[in-house]
């Protein structure tokens, strides 16, 4: 019954980071807020906006895997589901399907439906413990992908929906780069803050207890299954708005967005960044996006064709899992420990 998760780092137990906010976090936040003054429109949306959105989706995976011990591959699917719902309920280029609801109705309903979808997927995935989770969530993700591709009447088939745009309100055109960047940054910050808060709240602590020893928690009177399903619901709530932002950014949603490739990419982002802390997925996402954009030059420099991007991603992931299972964060922390090790030794 014990959820076997050796080989992956246990997320830092909540409370460890409670001792004030380090200056590096303040600087990062400041740089992110004044980013529009520093970066071009391309960097703002195509690099930072995209990284923030992917990071938020990967954050929902980090929450489940790092604090709940459940590696869920369904998070990208939940995000894509929300994107599909916005396209179906709101306006898109596919007028015969889209219902044309105003955004203030379509967006909340889409998020609600996506949370429902995520919760149901979670309810299925927690029927069995341990390594089954990854299989069941992968099967759900793949089934959803094939379903959207097959289904013409509701999901628009192979081509999906195009012309799904961010709305205009309060006199601001939210699809223009600077407001859209702030939209992405805003949700990423809220999601990050929510995770940091939840893992210190009683629910998050119970979840971490369940991660470490479900039997003991059950014996203490905690409903293990309910906690796990609630974790899925919370993770879906983080991922769904990010999925909508992703759909607005691309202006379209199609089966390719929820394909096996993107689903695995979210796992790669979270694992490479580090499952230990909520900031890990964002680091992974930034790296992924930069690689995605500049891989062509890098690959050509290595003497390979620019199409070998997936090879690079796969090898990077393999190296991470094989040599630094706690991701870049772990690498960074170990490096820091090594530097400060002589001091510690002297102190002891």
């Amino acid at each position, binding site marked *: 019954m014990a959820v076997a998760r050796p080989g992956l780092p246990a997320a830092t137990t909540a409370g460890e980071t409670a001792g004030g906010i380090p200056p590096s976090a303040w600087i990062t936040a400041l740089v992110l807020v004044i980013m529009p003054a520093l970066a071009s429109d391309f960097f703002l949306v195509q690099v930072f906006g995209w990284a923030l959105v992917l990071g938020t989706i990967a954050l929902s995976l980090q929450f489940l895997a790092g604090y709940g011990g459940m590696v869920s591959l369904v998070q990208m699917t939940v995000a894509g589901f929300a994107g599909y719902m916005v396209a179906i309920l709101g306006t898109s280029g596919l007028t015969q399907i889209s219902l044309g609801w105003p955004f203030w109705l379509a967006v909340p309903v889409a998020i609600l439906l996506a949370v429902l979808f995520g919760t149901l997927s979670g309810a299925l995935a927690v029927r069995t413990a341990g390594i089954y989770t990854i299989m069941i969530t992968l099967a759900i993700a793949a089934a959803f992908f*094939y379903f959207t591709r*097959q289904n013409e009447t509701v999901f628009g088939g192979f081509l999906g929906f195009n012309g799904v745009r961010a709305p205009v309100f309060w006199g601001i055109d939210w699809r223009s780069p600077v407001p859209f960047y702030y939209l992405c940054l805003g949700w990423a910050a809220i999601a990050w803050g929510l995770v940091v808060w939840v893992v210190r709240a009683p629910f998050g602590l119970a979840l971490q207890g369940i991660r470490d020893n479900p039997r003991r928690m059950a014996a203490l009177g905690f409903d293990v299954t309910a906690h796990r399903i609630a974790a899925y619901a919370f993770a879906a709530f983080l991922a769904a708005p990010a999925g909508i932002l992703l759909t607005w950014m691309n202006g379209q949603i199609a089966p390719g967005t929820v394909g096996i490739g993107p689903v695995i990419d979210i796992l790669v982002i979270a694992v490479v960044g580090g499952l230990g802390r909520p900031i890990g997925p964002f680091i992974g996402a930034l790296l992924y996006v930069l690689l995605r954009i500049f891989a062509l030059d890098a690959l050509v420099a290595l003497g390979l064709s620019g199409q070998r991007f997936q*090879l690079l991603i796969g090898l990077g*992931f*393999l190296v991470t899992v094989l040599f630094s299972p706690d991701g870049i964060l772990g690498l960074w922390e170990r490096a820091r420990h090594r530097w400060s090790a002589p001091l510690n030794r002297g102190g002891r």
Partner: protein
Amino acid sequence: MARAGAMATGEPGAEGGGLARRVERHPLAALLLALAIVLFLWLVLADWPEELERWLGRKRVFVSALFNGITLGGLYFLVATGFTLIFGLMRNVNLAHGSLYLFGGYLAYSTVQATGLWLPSFLVAFVLVAIVGLLLQVLVFRHMEGQELRQTLVTIGLSIVFADLMLWVWGGDFYQIPTPEWLAGPIDTPIVLDVRPNGEAVYLRYPRVRLVIFAASVVIGVLLWLAINKTRVGMLIRAGVDDREMLAASGVPIQLLFALVFAFGAGLAGMAGVVGGTFQSISPGEDTRFLLASLVVVIVGGLGSIPGAALGALLIGLAEQFGSVYLPTYAIVFSFLIMVLVLAFRPQGLLSVR
């Protein structure tokens, strides 16, 4: 159908008078199952009354969906059985299994292109893919024993790398392995589809190669069952599935056993790739399709159980084919629904060993 039944009786404790005992224990379930089988046989053999044709369409459509479903189930069994064998013994959820399938298909295609020989291509695919599996077990997975999640993540990484390497070598085209002449063309089956007004019966004509391959997968299934239940190596495998630590402690060279089973499971996937390449076609993306099929099959049948893989493969193959005939835009939902129902009511799988 017969295959699943024959294999199911191979479950521990079900030998000898097991069937009779089971019927005694669940009389209602046995009755319903018997009724379903009779109804099924009637649907296949009888001349359909007009009322039924109005409901289900032409009998031809129904019977060919049935045949396609069963033969597809045979293919799924070949893929999933290696997956379930590897998991059962080594607790390794090998998400690169679809890549091994696709690799086998490509290898066979290249072999047939180079030599024109179809049967030897099975051997090439089996041996080379088995070697890949052997190397993976010896070089990678052996060093992370017991770390289930890490192993699975490694297999995900491998599947990304393999997919891109294969795209590099074979490109993005669709390939079909040509059927050898002695297997090409249809075969007349004794199943009557329709009776013409002049009293002449129309028989079902079905591709010979699919029937032959299905028969081969049944033979492989039976041989596997015999190997696992009647040989010494099979005994060791069963012991390892039940209690790996005890088996290792009793002096069995367990690493050798692991390497053999991984190689064999991978080789089966490679051979299934040849079958899939002849049945259908091979192209990038087929790896995930067959990985998904294996996942659903073993979740339904019970992870680690070979009879379970047979039953799951048959169910999923039939669900897919009937779905695509009767409800094309929702076809995938059928297999998915089966998985959901199994997870809801019997999360360990239909024929789970534990």
